[in-house]
């Protein structure tokens, strides 16, 4: 019955989404939402994405995706978990009912009609008219929403008192899927911020950015600690708390985004429905943790930790750091409210505050990324540690020495790259040992051995690929320590120079300004010729866009469109500020951002690793591992 109710809910919500899309594409401006977020001249691509451009549409989108995920969970979950499914259906329906209630009773009905029909709509916010915004919000939503499924299974396990490790197996793919969507969504958000907002960076510790990072951190902690529960039957309480906490943080993220309680660049999403989320958040947290507390006696560990120098212990410290960073980000995000409440002083908590707190923690986490895989499960001996650590440590130390000799003096950047070297050393050593063993054992060529190694143990080696992606991201973040920027006002034919951290000099010559009309905007485009150390590289165009509706009326303030010339080492980032006295003399900001492409490559590698980990199949499991299996393997200190 509950199962059919979820399917019916899913069908009804899909009809609602199709209806709203129909209204958007038909330009039915009598529907308030359509008039508020589209116009007749809005490109089709963005007309589609207007579904989740506004508050009301995104709530409908959220509820619909949740019902789709809920239905899929009910259909795809293996039969031996079916005792949990009625509870799962109940939790999913309850959460979906909340979102639908907000739409119906919280003044967020996307089908609300106007008493008149405007000739044209207001159009979409220019900042949202970017390919990144077509994919970034749904990816983040998918990440946030899909956490509900592991949460529903956790609550189901608590309610049904089936608290063995079995339910974790049922949610493994869902947690990975959720983590993957969140990772891709965060990276796409960074890309959008970089190419669209024009401030020359990709992460500003904005409250809404922080809100997306929080569940990602706790989910990542869970993906590590769940291995201990699966292998050793430990950390049951901790894993349940992480799943519940991750889901609550995803609701908290929605509250932050929607309420406007903390000032954010995402102000276009604010409204009073945030307080519905606050109420729901408090009620859900109270209910979930009350249930959790009543079940604590059933959540005893099946085995004990044997040594503090073990993979399990390193994972515990890794979890401490993940959760510590999440707390630190949450603390910084909420501290302005706390300060106002406690001492009545309004304060601003910006990037300097977050960087001071989180860079050292991030570096410690990066170090543990390299250390964890080198330590054996259960217990590691000194000779084992020496053998495991020799190569990665040497790589890390050599990296640091090379950077020092090359003149790098920024401590954090140096540490990030050196620790990155250490982690890469660990990953390469793991792959090399595995491939060499296959080569000797099965006579496979090294390439084939590497491929089969990856294919037969996707979880472990896919995880190492994720670690490699994270190293690349950290190195790319370190590159921003060497960002340089300058402003210049240039008449046509005049040039400005900017020195790159690599030592060469860019020369930018203003070629002139052209003005023309495009589909839904009036464009003022400045073209610059770019040369590096006297060698011509090409031309760059940066624009001012005045968006207009179908009747030619301006709809928003003029926005800047950045000109970017990228290579693997650095980006030349040019912004047209405006013009002087209505002439072609233009004001530009030139920025050189080192290693930015590595952020996108790192993100892609993380996503690739995540896909490999969750890809179905792999080596045939001779026997499903159960928590706390009591095999004692003599003489096997080797890292597993």
């Amino acid at each position, binding site marked *: 019955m509950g199962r059919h109710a979820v399917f019916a809910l899913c069908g009804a919500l899909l009809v609602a989404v199709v209806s709203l899309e129909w209204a958007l594409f038909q330009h039915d401006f009598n529907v308030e939402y359509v008039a508020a977020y589209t116009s007749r001249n809005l490109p089709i691509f963005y007309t589609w994405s207007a579904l989740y451009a506004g508050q009301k549409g995104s709530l409908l989108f959220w509820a619909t995706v949740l019902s789709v995920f809920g239905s899929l969970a009910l259909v795809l979950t293996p039969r031996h978990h079916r005792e949990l499914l009625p509870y799962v259906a109940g939790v999913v329906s309850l959460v979906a009912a909340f979102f639908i209630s907000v739409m119906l009773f919280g003044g967020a009905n996307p089908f609300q009609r106007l008493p008149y029909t405007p000739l044209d709509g207001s159009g979409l916010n220019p900042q949202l008219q970017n390919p990144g915004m077509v994919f970034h919000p749904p990816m983040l939503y998918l990440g946030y929403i899909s956490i509900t499924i592991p949460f529903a299974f956790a609550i189901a396990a608590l309610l049904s008192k089936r608290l063995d490790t079995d339910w974790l197996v049922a949610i493994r793919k869902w947690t990975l899927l959720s983590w993957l969507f969140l990772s891709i969504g965060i990276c796409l958000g960074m890309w959008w911020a970089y190419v669209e907002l024009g401030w020359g960076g990709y992460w500003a510790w904005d409250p809404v950015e922080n809100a997306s990072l929080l569940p990602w951190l706790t989910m990542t902690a869970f993906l590590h600690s769940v291995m201990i529960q699966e292998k050793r039957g430990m950390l049951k309480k901790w894993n349940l708390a992480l799943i519940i906490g991750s889901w609550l943080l995803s609701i908290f993220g929605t509250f932050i985004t929607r309420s406007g309680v903390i000032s954010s660049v995402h102000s276009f999403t604010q409204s009073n429905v945030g307080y519905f989320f606050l109420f729901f958040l408090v009620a859900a947290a109270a209910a979930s943790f009350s249930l959790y507390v009543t079940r604590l006696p059933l959540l005893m560990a099946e085995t004990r930790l044997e040594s503090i120098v073990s993979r399990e212990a390193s994972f515990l410290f890794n979890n401490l750091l993940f959760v510590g960073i999440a707390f630190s980000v949450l603390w910084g995000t909420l501290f302005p409210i706390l300060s106002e409440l406690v001492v009545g002083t309004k304060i601003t908590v910006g990037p300097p505050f977050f960087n001071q707190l989180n860079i050292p923690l991030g570096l410690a986490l990066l170090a543990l990324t390299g250390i964890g895989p080198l330590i054996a499960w259960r217990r590691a001996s000194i000779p084992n540690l020496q053998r495991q650590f020799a190569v990665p440590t040497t790589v890390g130390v050599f990296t640091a020495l090379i950077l020092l000799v090359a003149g790098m003096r920024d401590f954090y950047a140096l540490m990030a790259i050196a620790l990155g070297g250490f982690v890469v050393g660990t990953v390469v050593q793991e792959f090399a040992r595995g491939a*060499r063993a296959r080569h000797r054992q099965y006579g496979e060529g090294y390439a084939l051995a590497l491929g089969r190694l990856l294919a037969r143990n996707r979880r472990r080696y896919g995880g190492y690929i994720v670690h490699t992606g994270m190293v690349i991201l950290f190195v790319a973040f370190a590159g921003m320590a060497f960002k340089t920027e300058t402003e210049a006002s240039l008449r046509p034919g005049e040039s400005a120079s900017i020195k790159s951290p690599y030592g060469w000099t860019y020369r930018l010559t203003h070629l002139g300004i052209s003005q023309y009309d495009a589909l839904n905007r009036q464009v003022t485009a400045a073209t610059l010729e770019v040369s590096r150390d006297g060698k011509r590289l090409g031309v760059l165009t940066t624009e001012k866009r005045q968006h207009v509706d179908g009747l030619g009326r301006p709809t928003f303030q003029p926005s800047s469109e950045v000109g970017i010339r990228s290579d693997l080492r650095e980006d030349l980032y040019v912004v047209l500020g405006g013009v002087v006295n209505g002439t072609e003399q233009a004001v530009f900001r030139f920025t050189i951002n080192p290693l930015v492409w590595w952020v996108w490559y790192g993100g892609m590698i993380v996503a690739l690793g995540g896909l490999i980990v969750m890809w179905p199949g792999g080596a045939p499991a001779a026997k499903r591992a159960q928590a706390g299996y009591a095999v004692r*393997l003599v003489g096997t200190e080797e890292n597993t």
Partner: protein
Amino acid sequence: MTRRHDATLHVSRREFLTLGVMGLGATSWNVATWRRATLQGPDSLPGTGPSGRLWDPARAGRPLEPVTAADNDAVIQAIEKQLHCTCGCNLDVYTCRTTDFTCAVSPAMHQHVVELAEQGMTGQLIIDQFVREHGVAILMAPPKRGFNLAGYFVPSLLIVAAGVALALVLRRWTRTAAPDAVPARPVAAGTPEELERLRGELDRLSV
């Protein structure tokens, strides 16, 4: 080329080929011209006189003043990066004035910083002056005093405390762990191949 009695147009093979070559030539010429046109040349030369006026300056946003030496002054920039723009953008003054060119607040704050610097005030004095005028919310990060110390140190202290507690708990757990039936120390060292094989087997068990 002939028109038949039923009004259809007949094109011979030679005419068809001639027309094809002409069409190809015209297309190539068009493409070549377009390629040349994209390599836009300067429409005025350096120092040859005033720039031309834009067709519609209003489309280019708020009129701006030419950049001065103070705008690129590293000290001024460093000060502005510590000051929060009050327009609601959540950015520092420098980033806002060089990003959101529709904002009138950050250029005014920048002008104020420049004026104070021209009066001979140091960076810290300028920041103090802004705090007097706007309160501590004008700073991008709260000063390290009073309740703000909690902001800076609570997360680090909690993490350190949790780390110490975790280490103590782990130590206790490992001491109270039931003694193993088999000694923990290896009784024989495996070859790398054996160990790798074992590792593979264990991994397969845990998949």
